[in-house]
Structures are given as structure tokens and as C-alpha cells.
């Protein structure tokens, strides 16, 4: 593969292909990942090239998928599991939080659990119920899991490589409404650490922190704010557990203001943890309370309301204004 512009979905596809080529222990598992290539075509062509033994169409049972992936990992394999949509991960929740997350500790380190769980997540594609959710906080509270979400094709490619190489279970939240966004991937690049945040845009007046699908919205908000003469710094957190608080702290010590943006409901969401910890770390630097922009405490609404529900440019700018007003 040469340096090229790729849609985010295709970047993941290329990353999976590379992993399958490099390590015979890597497996792809999930519903419809074979001939169909997954409902978003992220595994397109992989079964054709690597066979049914490496790219495995599974029975329709998420607990079974994750549970057998655990067994395969115990046997020395490195399964990359696809959950078809965010809202369908819950049948596997028990296996993820009581088994996958805890097995390494339970065995006092004698077992490793190199399992990646890919979950297309978030809204914005006009889907029916259960196809637009952002459940990351429900996993981040659980020790033993690492949770990441890329926002660019390059990160999608490299973070997937790193997730597969990790000896810990990684939940890989893929921003499904960005699957078709193209950006550059350099397959020869040397990636930074998996759990390090990235300063997506430098600024001085206020920090916007986001991950996955919301990074783009924040960059657009920053561009709009710039026209009004406000200089926003945008952080792409990339990792939801752990969170790179050092990078956030550095930024907030500079700007004095933080707005956290995510699609997931605000109540008990990742913004809460970020607000709490950053306030503790930067108490004397903060000119305003950390503000949060996110989903409401309500089920993800029907598609015709999702543009209201999802944090957009204006809601981010509204929070920016409120923060700057302190």
C-alpha cells in the first residue's frame, strides 16, 4: 500500500488485511464479515483472500462470539471481533466485563487476552433504533479494558494495528458516520502511542476535547469561532480509557477553559470523568467550569430527530460562548 487518501472504513480494511498477512494468529470473527464483508464492508474481500478459517462468519450470538474469541485467545489466537452495531454489543456485555476484562488479572498475569472488539458506533446515518448509540462509558468504567476511537483514516489504520498488537483487550469504537470520509494514510509512518491524545488544532482561548465522530464537528466549530476572532484548541483524545489527561491538562493550563463534546448522553458520560479530573488537576487555572456537550438523558431518538439530538456546530459554539462568558 502506498501513501494515499482512503475512506476511514477502507483504512480499517487495509489495516486488518495487513494484520492478517503479518500474523497467522490473527482472526476476524463476526456476523456477516465473510462474503458480505460486513454491513459496512469493513471486512470486504478479506474472506476471499484469507479463507473461511481466518475470516469467520459466526452464528448470530454476540455472547458466543466474544466468549469463543476468549477461548481462541487462550489457545494463542488474536481474534478481531466485529459487533455489527453499537446497540447489539449488550448480549456480549457479560463476557466482556466479567471474563474478557478480568481474565488477565484473575490469572495473576499468566493469561493474556489479545482480543479486539470492533464496534461501529454513533449516530448521524439516519438509522433505526439500536443503530446509533455511543455506549463507550459503559465499558470505560470497567478495569481491564482499553477503549479507543479514531477520528481520521490514518488513526483508524494505525490504531487498529496497535490494538491488534496489544496484549490487552481493546474495544475499538469506529465512528460509523465518518466511514466514508477520506484522509491520508501513510503505511510507512511511525505512529505515536495508542493512548496519547493529539492536538488537532492549536488555539489559546478555550480547549475543545472530543474523540471519534465529534472531532470533525469541533474542528468546524473552531473554524467558525476563528471567524469571530476566537482561538480554540481542539484535542482529539483518541483514547477513552485510559484518557491522556496530561495532554488535556497542558492545554487547559494554557487556555483556562474546557468544553468536552461527545455524542453519548452527558449524564454519567465520559465528559463527567474528564470534567472531574481536569477540574482537580487544573483548579486554579480554570476560568470557567468544564462544560459538557452531548446527548440527552433519553433513548437515542428516531432518525428524523437525530440532528436535534446530536451535538452540532451550534451547540458546541453555544457552550463555547457560555464558557467564555464566565
Amino acid at each position, binding site marked *: 500500500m502506498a501513501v494515499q487518501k482512503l475512506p476511514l472504513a477502507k483504512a480499517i480494511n487495509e489495516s486488518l488485511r495487513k494484520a492478517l498477512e503479518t500474523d497467522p494468529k490473527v482472526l476476524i470473527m463476526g456476523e456477516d464479515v465473510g*462474503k458480505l464483508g460486513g*454491513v459496512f464492508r469493513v471486512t470486504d474481500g478479506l474472506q476471499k483472500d484469507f479463507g473461511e478459517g481466518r475470516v469467520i*462468519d459466526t452464528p448470530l450470538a454476540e455472547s*458466543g462470539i466474544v466468549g469463543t474469541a476468549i477461548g481462541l485467545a487462550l489457545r494463542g489466537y488474536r481474534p478481531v471481533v466485529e459487533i455489527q452495531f453499537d446497540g447489539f454489543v449488550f448480549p456480549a456485555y457479560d463476557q466482556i466485563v466479567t471474563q474478557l476484562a478480568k481474565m488477565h488479572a484473575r490469572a495473576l498475569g499468566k493469561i493474556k487476552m489479545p482480543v479486539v472488539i470492533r464496534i461501529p458506533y454513533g449516530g448521524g446515518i439516519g438509522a433505526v433504533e439500536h443503530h446509533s448509540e455511543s455506549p463507550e462509558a459503559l465499558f470505560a468504567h470497567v478495569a481491564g479494558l482499553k477503549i479507543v476511537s479514531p477520528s481520521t483514516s490514518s488513526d483508524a489504520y494505525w490504531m487498529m494495528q496497535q490494538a491488534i498488537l496489544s496484549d490487552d483487550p481493546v474495544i475499538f469504537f469506529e465512528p460509523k458516520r465518518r466511514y466514508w470520509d477520506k484522509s491520508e494514510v501513510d503505511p510507512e509512518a511511525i505512529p505515536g502511542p495508542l493512548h496519547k491524545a493529539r492536538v488537532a488544532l492549536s488555539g489559546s482561548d478555550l480547549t475543545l476535547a472530543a474523540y471519534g465522530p465529534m472531532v470533525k464537528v469541533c474542528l468546524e466549530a473552531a473554524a467558525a469561532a476563528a471567524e469571530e476572532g476566537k482561538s480554540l484548541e481542539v484535542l482529539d483524545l483518541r483514547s477513552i480509557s485510559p484518557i491522556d489527561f496530561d495532554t488535556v491538562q497542558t492545554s487547559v493550563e494554557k487556555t483556562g477553559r474546557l468544553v468536552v463534546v461527545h455524542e453519548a448522553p452527558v449524564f454519567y458520560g465520559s465528559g463527567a470523568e474528564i470534567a472531574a479530573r481536569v477540574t482537580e488537576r487544573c483548579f486554579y487555572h480554570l476560568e470557567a467550569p468544564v462544560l459538557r456537550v452531548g446527548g*440527552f438523558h*433519553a433513548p437515542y431518538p*428516531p432518525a428524523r430527530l*437525530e440532528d436535534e439530538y446530536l451535538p452540532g456546530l451550534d451547540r458546541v459554539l453555544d457552550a463555547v460562548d457560555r464558557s467564555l462568558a464566565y
Partner: protein
Amino acid sequence: MTVESTAPRKPRRSSGTKRTSARRTPQQQSSEPQLVQLLTPEGERVEHPEYEIDLTPEELRGLYRDMVLTRRFDAEATSLQRQGELGLWASLLGQEAAQIGSGRALHDDDYVFPTYREHGVAWVRGVDPTNLLGMFRGVNHGGWDPGANNFHLYTIVIGSQTLHAVGYAMGVAKDGADSAVIAYFGDGASSQGDVAESFTFAAVYNAPVVFFCQNNQWAISEPTEKQMRVPLYQRAQGYGFPGVRVDGNDVLACLAVTRSALARARRGEGPMLVEAFTYRMGAHTTSDDPTKYRADEETESWRAKDPILRLRRLLEREGHADEAYFTGLEEESEALGRRVREAVRAMPDPDRLAIFDHVYADGSALVDEERAQFAAYQASFADSADSAEGGK
């Protein structure tokens, strides 16, 4: 008559676990099981030792009409999706007999737990077809009143409704009521733990529930071999209740078998599993592209078993319907299509603040606070309310 399956499938190799050549290949699946059929694809009545059905010409025409109108409605929904009026549609094309047959077996006080594809069952329950379209248009998540027609909301999380059905049936039994419950699910769903648990609970509590599996051969792109190694109806026995496979494209057989299973449940004899052997003629949903994973010949071979055509042949052969009837029905179909089309186009978008409705029955300070904040935020755009856009 009990006949060999009308649907011999090409054997497929199980995937993923090829063994070394020293190992024997997996035992062949037992030869195709028997299935209950009362009407052949050619439209001929056949006898069955256990199941029989005696319908008046009017009843036969009724079943025919149900199937035709359901198919017409389904086609309209598919085209509404193409026109952008719906976000998605899950077509039942090919499964009309399974749904109309089983649905017409129900009494009014029976309760139905559907998946997301039971448009035919909804039809016979008297749910206004337009109501089904709300969730596919994206204006609600279902939202019809389940109690109004004893027809529960569509359930998307595969298999979960089977447990609701069993719980409901446990309640029916507790009430000493003389009704039964039917739980629809698919061949793919049979792999979900919830479905297995529903079998266990139904057996242990002897609940008056009929598990009705439409085995339409596919779970999106996965053939049934990815879910099971032996015919599904056989699973019931291991849980302690009977299972039967019925020709799912034969509306008479589906009606007779479901009636019998429901009667059994109403008599307090407990659950039963009915596997309707049928075929998903179309794509999984309008988002799906079946050419990626299945052969045209397979679909073609099933076209010959079309459920509507075979009943039409019977009606014609036995002289129960004439050309005028069919023309009249054609017109009725078109009228239904028009009505649905117009109703969908007229369906208003929900109010933005509806996001906050019905989160809780008893209310919530948190929801009230968020609603008020959001309303104030919206109001802050004053007359230019439209500039509050989404984040796409």
C-alpha cells in the same frame, strides 16, 4: 401428506474449522426432514395424517386477499424507501404464507410478539399498515399501542422478544385465561441465548406460548448452516416440548399447524415450536445487497414455490374465484398502495422536544431540566430557529 422438503439446499461446508486430513469429515446432516404440507406449489390439496384443514371458499379467498394485500403493501414500502420517504424497509416478500397462515390462526385475545418483519401478521391483527412505517421513516421507534391489537412493538434486538412472549404467557396462565401467545423469530435468531432461555422458561412453567420460527434460509448473508447443523424444529424436543416443520410457503399448512399448536397451548399443554420453512425472496433490508452472497438460481428455485401463486391455482382450479374477483382485488391492492403512499408522505416529523417525552412514566427531574435547557437553547435562535442544525 408428509412430503420431502420442497427446498433441498446445496450442502455447504462448515466454515472456519477445517480439520487435518487425518480426521474424518463431519457427519452429514441427517437427510432432509419431513415437513407438513397441505397445498403443493402446483396448487393441489394434499392430505396429512395429523393436520387437516377445512375452509370455506370465502375463507380461502380471505387468505388469498391477505397475502396479496400484504405483498402489495410491502412492495409499496420498498418503493417508498427508494423514493427517500423511508430510511429503511425490511421486506417480507416470500414469507406471506407463513405470516398470514400463522396470523389467521390467532384468536383476538392471543398476543403476538413479532420481530421487525411481521407485516403480514400485523395486517391480520388489524394494525394499520401505515403505523408500521413510522419506525422505518424515522419518526418513531414503533409507537403503536400494543394493547390495541394484542400486537407488540417490533423488536430489533434479535431474539429478545421471545422472553417477553414467555413472560406474557406465564401471566396468561396465572390469570387462568384461555388465550395463547405467539413469538416470532428467525433462523438466525435461533442462535441467541435469549431464545434458548425462552425455551427453558416456557418448558419449566409450561407456558401457553407458540414459538414460530420463519426459517427463511438466511440471516442477512449467513445461510442456516452458520446457525445450526440439524433442522431447527428438532431443538424443541430437547427442551421437553414438540417441534414441527411446516411448509412455510403453504398458507393452509401454516394455518393448520399454528392453530393446532395454539389450541394445545390453550389447553394447558405447554409450548410448541413451529418451524416454517420458507425463503426470503428479497434483500435482508433495503440496505442489503444479496448478490454479494447468494446465487440467483437459489432464489429462482424458490420462486416456483411462491405462496400466493399456489393458492391462486387452488382458487382457480376449484372455481372459488373468478376473473372479476382477481381484478377487484387488484384494484383494492392499488388503493391500499395509494393510501399508504399518501399517508406516509403526510406523516409529520415529530416535534424536537419529543426527544424528552416518555423517557419515564413518572417523570424525572433530570429530563425536565434537560428539556427546559434545550427549549431555551432553541428559543435563543429566535426567529431563525432553523439555523440550529445537526452535526453531520
